[in-house]
């Protein structure tokens, strides 16, 4: 069958100025031109570039639901942005044989001052629906969103749940031949997510072609027949969703190994009051490259507080390989009240006790945030892959058995013979 999407050798190169913001000022440009006119005439100076996507090729047939998976920075979003025509590729070509609608965010263009009804029309138009199409589906959209009573209320008075439901309802009623969906299911409560998944399943069931990005492997397996795995901007696997997701879950990217944390930390966007300097993982005083489950894991987070800051919290999430948070721990969780930190350099240390981690893949995500104000690190935190090897207390007679579970805390057992038993 003829493909509905054909991607051939697609690549996208980004310029990264050395620590400069992506936009400049005219003043700088003029001053630069005055200082070094030949450089301007020659067309640019010593700019660093990076390929976010390189040599990506695949075909999608009509009616297929394809999951696009990969770690953060693997190029998923760039790929979706190119296919949605938001940004242009640097090389290669993509052909689309159908109307495309993309849902990279729910509620794009929602205006708080406008009513629910008005926003449905505005958002619909932004997503590419005609007024007649919106008229036709308006009742359906409102029914799906369950906000009938408030449809003539400005959305600034909506709860965040109502807002999301209405926004998703509009997007869910698009009827393009190709639907491109980014991680929109990461929002909302569980019931709402379930409803969205159902709706997405419907869309796919009706023969529409769907490209779907998610970190939720469960959702990918449930919705997609096929998955494409991206790593470092290139396709590393393409096949049945169950196999490719399996591959992804086992895949520890070298780009963010423990040894690589330093380079990730150095590239973090600056924050006015907090600067992460280093994250050190050690076991028994030695740098941990492989993590051994039988030894305590010490986590040292070194950072600089740049100004007097109230309510700064440094913390980490221990996530499983699907991104589910197993637990979160704050550096001040044993303290009393909101702490105020003076400017200066600090190190917060935590220890995950021996015989806690299981011999599986984890992701340790280190965050910092100011309570009730903002995050000082990117939303995903600084993610460090942990590949844990079993060295803890296990009955060696059964070592060949596969490990079940996500954590392996040392549970004290005792076995005694029951006195009144046989």
């Amino acid at each position, binding site marked *: 069958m003829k493909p509905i999407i054909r991607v051939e050798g697609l690549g996208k190169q*980004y310029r990264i100025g050395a620590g400069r913001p992506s936009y400049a000022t005219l003043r700088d440009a003029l001053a630069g031109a005055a200082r070094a006119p030949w450089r301007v005439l020659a067309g640019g100076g010593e700019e660093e570039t990076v390929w976010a996507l390189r040599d990506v090729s695949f075909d999608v047939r009509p009616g297929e639901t394809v999951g696009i998976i990969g770690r953060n920075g693997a190029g998923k979003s760039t790929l979706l942005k190119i296919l949605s025509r938001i940004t242009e590729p640097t090389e290669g070509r993509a052909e*689309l044989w*159908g109307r495309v609608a993309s849902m*990279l965010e729910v509620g794009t263009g929602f205006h708080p001052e406008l009513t629910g009804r008005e926003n449905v029309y505005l958002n619909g138009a932004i997503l590419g629906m005609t007024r007649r199409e919106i008229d036709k589906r308006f009742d359906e959209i409102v029914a799906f969103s369950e906000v009938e009573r408030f449809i003539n209320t400005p959305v600034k008075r909506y709860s965040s749940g109502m807002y999301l439901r209405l926004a998703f309802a509009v997007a869910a009623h698009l009827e393009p031949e190709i639907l491109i969906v980014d991680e929109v299911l990461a929002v909302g409560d569980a019931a709402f997510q379930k409803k969205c998944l159902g709706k997405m399943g419907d869309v796919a069931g009706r*023969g529409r072609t769907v490209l779907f990005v998610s970190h939720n492997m469960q959702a990918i397996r449930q919705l997609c027949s096929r998955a494409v795995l991206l790593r470092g901007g290139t396709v*590393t696997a393409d096949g*049945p969703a169950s196999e490719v997701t399996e591959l992804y879950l086992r895949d520890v990217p070298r780009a963010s190994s423990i040894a690589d944390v330093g380079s990730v930390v150095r590239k973090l966007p600056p924050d006015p009051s907090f600067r992460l300097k280093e994250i050190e993982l050690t076991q028994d005083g030695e740098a941990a490259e492989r993590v051994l489950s039988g030894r305590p894991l010490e986590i040292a987070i070194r950072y600089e507080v740049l100004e007097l800051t109230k309510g700064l919290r440094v913390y980490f999430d221990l996530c499983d390989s699907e991104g589910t948070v197993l637990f979160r721990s704050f550096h001040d969780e044993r303290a009393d009240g909101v702490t105020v930190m003076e400017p200066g350099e600090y190190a917060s240390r935590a220890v995950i006790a021996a015989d806690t981690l299981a011999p599986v893949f984890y992701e340790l995500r280190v965050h910092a945030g100011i309570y009730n104000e903002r995050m000082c690190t990117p939303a995903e935190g600084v993610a460090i892959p942990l590949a844990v090897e079993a060295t803890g207390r296990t009955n060696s007679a059964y070592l060949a058995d596969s490990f079940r579970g996500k954590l392996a805390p040392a549970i004290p057992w005792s076995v005694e013979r029951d006195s009144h038993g046989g």
Partner: protein
Amino acid sequence: MGETAAKTARPARTEEHPPPPAFEPPREPLVIIEPTRRRVSLGLRDLWAYRELLYFLVWRDVKVRYKQTAFGVLWVVAQPLLTTLIFTLVLGMLVKIPTEGAPYPLLVFSGLLPWTFFSGAVATSGNSLVGNSHLITKVYFPRMIIPVAAVGARLVDFLVAFVVFAGLMLYYGQPLTWRLAALPLLVLLVTALALGVGMWASALNVRYRDVGVAVPVLMQLWMFASPVVYPLNLVPENWRAVYALNPAVGIIAGFRTALLGGEFDLTALAVSVVVTLVVLVLAAYSFRRMEKFFADLV
């Protein structure tokens, strides 16, 4: 298909889920995505296909403006009136600028009418791309719609200001003439000029953020280089030719003639038309050339 599969580590394609043949693809791709070549088209067909979005964006801007400020309409009315009052006090009464018969407030208002629209439209459309960055990074549509919609929303204010001016005309007993018939053409012309300048400023503003700051200052200078608060014949005869290269000159003088009577300066108007068209076309092409960086820069 074959060469694609060869590049992947796990080429096994599933054949277990034959997709239902619900959709027959057209012979030619609807959309081809590739790096733009040197020659760019204006993309007018695409713009036309998205005309409803243009309508909704104008509608949003108008609605939000008049909803947010309780004095929405009042503000639109008061702004040119207050400016007129100030200029009347300073230039009309203190400096005593000759007005060729018409009352000075009418002379000023007839200039401020198109100028307030023009400078307002340039300012809002100049900031429109940066202000709508959340749309640009999330959805595709012809980018040109954004600055065009910003100008469109200002047209509504223009209309309101016209009503105020009509009231002022009645108050001063100014006679209406056949020259009013030129108004639609003049409105079209000033809109085209605002589109050209605004579109260009908006694209530059994405790349160089200080353009947004520079625009109001430049507009202030431009105002005094145009016959807004003084009549055209105040400019010395031998400077007229250079002066009229400013496309706003023919337009504003034209508005004044249409509203207050007198002779149309056809040369100045012709120059305005030509310069406006050149500005609009150049702006549109350079906008299209810069457009591909918007989502990455904004």
